[in-house]
């Protein structure tokens, strides 16, 4: 009788599996139709980097070279010169080699003025690899186009329809890094 019991066990297991499969058919698909529906990606997830300009069109970047030093892949090249008008430096060249960038966002973390930020923009595939070598104009363009971005110092910021930049409401802020840094500053 052990043979019959074994056969029955096998038949029962197969039946259970097939019933489970059939239940799946009725359930709705979880698929997002990518080119037609874009996924909502929070800017905290590092997809791309951008340079942010102030509301009056001047650079936020103060050419402190912190990002260039912090970059583990050594893809940031900054050239600067002394500001003839006053103190500080003027940015002459800011190249970011996105081909080799490993998207670690170390540059974003060390930036003292939140000039380089992460954006949730991910559609950057190209036919020619040299197109990915970004210069300052391109990074500024991504920054101008971005509506929402993130840096640990200022948290998530949004661009209003009238062009002014504001800190995003708390429900848009990430729970982790920004509050941690804010707590450190407070202490």
């Amino acid at each position: 009788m052990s043979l019959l019991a074994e056969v029955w066990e096998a038949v029962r297991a197969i039946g259970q599996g097939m019933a489970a499969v059939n239940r799946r058919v009725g359930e709705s698909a979880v698929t997002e139709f990518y080119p037609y529906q874009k996924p909502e990606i929070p800017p905290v997830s590092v997809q791309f980097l951008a340079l942010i300009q102030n509301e009056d069109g001047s650079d936020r970047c103060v050419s402190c070279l912190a990002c260039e030093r912090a970059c583990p892949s050594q893809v940031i090249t900054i050239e600067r010169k002394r500001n003839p008008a006053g103190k500080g430096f003027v940015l002459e060249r800011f190249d970011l080699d996105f081909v080799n960038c490993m998207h670690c966002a170390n540059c974003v973390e060390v930036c003292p003025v939140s000039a380089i930020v992460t954006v949730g923009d991910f559609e950057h595939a190209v036919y020619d690899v040299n197109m990915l070598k970004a210069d300052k104009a391109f990074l500024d363009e991504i920054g101008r186009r971005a509506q929402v971005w993130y840096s640990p110092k200022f948290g998530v910021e949004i661009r209003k329809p009238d062009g002014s930049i504001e800190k995003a409401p708390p429900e848009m802020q990430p729970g982790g890094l920004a509050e941690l840094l804010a707590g450190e500053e407070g202490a």
Partner: protein
Amino acid sequence: MSRMPLPLDRHIKPKLVGYDPTRPRPGVERLAYTLFFGSLWALVVVAYGLVPALFRSQGWLDGALGFFFYAVIEALLAFGIAAVVALILIVVLRKYLGKVQERVGPMHYGPAGVLQTVFDALKLLGKEDFAPANVDPLIFRLAPAITFVSAFLMLVAVPVAGGWVMADLNVGLLFIVAASTLGAYGVVLGGLAQGGKWGMLGAFRAGAQLVSYEVPLALALLAVGVYSGSLRLSDIVEHQQGLWHVVPMFIPFLVYLVASIAELKSTPFDLPEAESELIGGFNTEYSGMSFAFFFLAEFVELFLLPALVVVLFFGGWHGPLFGLDPASFAAQALQSFYFLVKTAVWVWIFMWIRATLPRFRDDQLMDLAWKGLLPLALFGLILAAFLRMFVEVV
């Protein structure tokens, strides 16, 4: 350092072409499947009903020339049926597997993705048909043709309605067994001729599996033949007028079901082409149209083996005729409709099994064939003989 001026706007967005699934268009998918089924039915009615009726009524079949043209036209129509069946079943299988896995399957090309297989077929047509250096060129080219022809031959003997059959052979069952065995030759020869280790392993597995499962399959068919007293498929269907064979012949039915899935080389019996182990097994080195013929044969068999389940065990074309004269054209068309509906249900069950079960191990496969199915099939054969002798359920 001089730098090439690069365009500021380097975002290249893919074009939005094809069917947009986010726009709600209810019923498009259902309409597409209805059209699929309708076109297949129309093709069957033309191939099995209209053309033979036309040739018989005009008396063209008496002359040699008329018979030649009849044969050519029927062969073309049968090829058309095979192609349409494969085109439909590939996209239906992909959609069904998608549904099982909570995704959507082919979606964007054609309404609800129904043109996907057309694009696949056109692409394979334009693909390089490559033969590696150390293949046996003749057998390498012949093997896909053998496999496809074997699937194609089975189509000839299947009756779709009363009197609607391309060749009503008096040894139909033997013909079916012979044709499906021919398919095993194509697979084994194709695997061995390509001179690679994956193909060789696939051919060994295919040989072991297909030959082993041929035995219980043939015995199950023989049981049906013994019980119904004829090897002619039309007679077997006629014999099921009162009671479908699945009730008295339940054991041969089970054996046939398992063995035909093994003949089909689909999961859980896909060892010959085990993609995760043998990178395609016997069709590793085939590309372009040669590969397409293997693909086509597989899906034609996915239609024909369920069709044989229906013919042998589920009453073939039998169904309520609503008082129509069984010899009339309308009744025969209705019968072919019943046949196709039953076949569609069984194709769905085959796909369901394919979507559920994981792959067997080699020794489990052999155990099942020789220790499980063969005794069961012999028992079924004896049972059929006893039923035939003592019960006479006709």
